[in-house]
């Protein structure tokens, strides 16, 4: 059972426009959410995170929104750049000691010049 779902396997946007990547989760005990970016043949790199006590976190062009009642979070990239083309993973941290990350399947973003 997939506890963290990224229902769009791919997304294509024009350079300069907004990219919106979505993530849904089923476990209400998750209390921390992260977005990672992955280029081919490289390991994932941390992008941005949000605690469950917040509904928004912003870092430059990247903003993550959390809607706890809907168990939904989204990553907004504005403006999108060709270098943003990568696979984006949503991950959620289990509560308690020795917390572990549960990962979505990823969304492949292509930003076209």
């Amino acid at each position, binding site marked *: 059972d997939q506890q963290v779902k990224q229902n769009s396997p791919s997304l294509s946007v024009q350079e300069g426009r907004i990219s919106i990547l979505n993530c849904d989760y089923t476990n209400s005990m998750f209390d921390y959410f*992260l977005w990672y970016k992955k280029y081919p043949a*490289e390991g994932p790199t941390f992008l941005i995170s949000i605690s469950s006590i917040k509904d928004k976190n912003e870092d430059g062009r990247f903003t993550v929104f959390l809607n706890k009642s809907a168990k939904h979070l989204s990553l907004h990239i504005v403006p999108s750049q060709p270098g943003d083309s990568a696979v984006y993973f949503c991950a959620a941290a289990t509560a308690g000691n*020795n917390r572990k*990350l549960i990962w979505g*399947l990823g969304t492949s973003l292509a930003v076209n010049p």
Partner: protein
Amino acid sequence: NAGVTQTPKFRILKIGQSMTLQCTQDMNHNYMYWYRQDPGMGLKLIYYSVGAGITDKGEVPNGYNVSRSTTEDFPLRLELAAPSQTSVYFCATKGPGPQETQYFGPGTRLLVL
């Protein structure tokens, strides 16, 4: 700082062979993790360690073993390679504090034939 390094980058194994995937970090992080990523899938946790001498199973530990004799090193052992272990393996670390950010190595691509 090199961060998290993994060797080898790529390896082909025959069924039944064994090998050790190496992971070394210079970040002085206590937490270390091994993940596998199958094509089109998210990351699955194999084993993790909360410090030297302490290891525990993740979601998919069967067919693997780990040890953690030092803070820096966290090798992953495959004893009897099977085609189902064909995957990309990532090692990651996490520092102290409430942030759940993990730092990943570049990965080892393993093909079992």
